[in-house]
């Protein structure tokens, strides 16, 4: 079992997301430290992809900004390595990569996943890799003790038992139909989804997609094991650029206090 369980060890988890390299990797590093210092339990590090089909406009734009700035998978690996091996204050909280299947496949699954292990990444989220296709990557992940995170959507219905029973690390519950992005209301009956998951798995589950306010985060974490926030944070980075670490830190603190 990986480091991910520690994220859920102290009750409800708050899981922030950041697109690496937006606007540059030095800023990303500061943001990650600010997230950790303000109570993040697990951090999702987005490796940008040119055509992120599961993302709304906010994260699409962040991906393109990062790629335009010259970020690459290797540079992101290097950044994580530096954070983990910092001699003064090494970062210890669990971290997972969130990217698209082609980024891993094209790099070479073996090379990508073994590097994840080596630099201290705990899990991998690939939104375009459903249960039916995961074996090819999961086989490698298991050898390197990296958790390949399973996603469950409002449309999963009869698939939930199958997905949950094989899940590792944590289960990512997609709150709504559509792509990532801030939503005013979440209509899905998350509690029923969580109930079905828990009948089939002991792995913790966190809810993401559309969460931006402390109230939403508290509600979602209340009926699951944690809340995941992406677009709302990426928006702050778009607004503050190189000075985003401060505002993101404050935001994470506010959200963590709400789910606590």
């Amino acid at each position, binding site marked *: 079992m990986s480091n991910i369980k520690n994220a859920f060890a102290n009750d409800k988890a708050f899981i922030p997301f950041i697109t690496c390299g937006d606007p540059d990797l030095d800023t990303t590093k500061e943001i990650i430290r600010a997230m950790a210092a303000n109570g993040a339990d697990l951090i999702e590090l987005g490796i940008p992809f040119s055509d992120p089909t599961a993302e709304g406009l906010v994260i699409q734009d962040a991906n393109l900004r990062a790629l335009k700035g010259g970020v690459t998978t290797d540079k992101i690996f290097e950044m994580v390595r530096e954070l983990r091996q910092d001699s003064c204050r090494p970062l210890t909280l669990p971290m997972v990569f969130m990217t698209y299947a082609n980024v891993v496949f094209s790099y070479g699954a073996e090379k990508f996943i073994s590097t994840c292990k080596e630099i201290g990444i705990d899990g991998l989220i690939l939104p375009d890799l459903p249960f039916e296709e995961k074996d090819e990557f999961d086989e490698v992940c298991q050898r390197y003790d990296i958790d390949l995170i399973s996603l469950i959507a409002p449309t999963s219905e009869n698939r939930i038992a199958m997905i949950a029973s094989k899940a590792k690390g944590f289960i990512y519950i997609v709150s709504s139909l559509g*792509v990532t992005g801030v939503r005013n209301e979440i209509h899905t009956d998350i509690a029923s989804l969580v109930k079905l998951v828990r009948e089939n798995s002991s792995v913790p589950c966190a809810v993401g997609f559309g969460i931006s306010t402390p109230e939403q985060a508290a509600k979602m974490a209340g009926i699951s094991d944690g809340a995941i926030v992406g677009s709302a944070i990426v928006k702050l980075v778009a607004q503050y650029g190189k000075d985003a670490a401060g505002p993101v830190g404050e935001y994470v603190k506010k959200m963590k206090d709400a789910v606590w």
Partner: protein
Amino acid sequence: MCLRCIRKLVYANLSKAGIKAAQKRGKIMSNKKGRFGVHGGQYIPETLMNAVIELEEAYNHYKNDPEFNQELTALFNEYAGRPSRLYYAEKMTRDLGGAKIYLKREDLNHTGSHKINNVLGQALLAKKMGKIRLIAETGAGQHGVATATAAALLGMECVVFMGEEDTKRQALNVYRMRLLGSEVISVRTGTATLKDAVSEAMREWTSRIDDTHYCLGSVMGPHPFPTIVRDFQAVISREIKQQLMEKEGRLPDVVMACVGGGSNAMGTFYHFINDKNVKLIGCEAAGRGTDTFETAATIATGRPGIFHGMKSYFCQDEYGQIAPVYSISAGLDYPGIGPEHAYLHDTGRAQYVPVTDEEAVNAFEYLSRTEGIIPAIESAHAVAHAMKIAPTYEKDKIIVITISGRGDKDCASIARYRGEDINE
């Protein structure tokens, strides 16, 4: 009507041996997860999984349903104008001085391209599934126009996603879609071309699944789309085979077509795959050349990847970022190729060749002048390669070129390419 008569109607053009061969091919070439060798699969968000499973189940049911097939055949024949002509291009043959050249005239179909074959099939299937709304991507606008047409005919809502660049290149088709009652959404993300229109249509589908069918326009995307689209387009090779048998009493030596995603090529190849002596050639858009970055020749310049729901060949950089591709033809301006083509390439069964903008424009003008047929600039890529190889064949050999669409939509942009500014 008794079952036997219906079967006779449905399989009018398909011999008993043909049916068996088709079934055998189906078994070998697409397993449960829709794999073609290592290619294909279903690389899509969990949100869409039940939708593609539902689609697969519905398709497996209706493809063998006599009533469905009878309705579709009626639409093909009475509405779309099938069978399309197999025309002996005598002047072109004489001029090139080699193999006998036949043109499969998909440009004569209603809406002006082969796209209508797939669209009528999918729209009818969607309607049977209880869907009330079609969404589609389009590059040149041919698939968008075909989808808007089927939606109008079958009384369905329709939304077409089109890259902003392409809405400028193909303004006339945007008007046609709106005239047909469709909403056209201009996609500004990414490179604002076909790949971004596909991405946006996929995003839209994840947000509204219950009443909406994604009418994908090529032999690409997640299973079961590559198989469904191929089966609906296979009417092209079924007809070529029968028509050539009537005219020449034999199989062709070469069949060829242009390839973007590859639906007209797959339709042209399909019933010849087991005829080992028939050479299959797909013509890719090389843009300004395969040694430049301004190309869309996926087999020539791409490598294996996972994108838009499938494993196949893609134009991409060393980190797997999808490359911004280019071709004068909006319909071939796509960084990937359908998974069955990737498999036919791997096994060596089909050959894929790059054709540049300049060669395609020359062929566009050549066919217009020589035969009085203005081909779509997409189809002109296949004509261009035929012009290269026909003279190398003996006079008793036969080449069939599929003219996937008509070229009216391209006249303004080809004029611009030649430095002449005309209003559409």
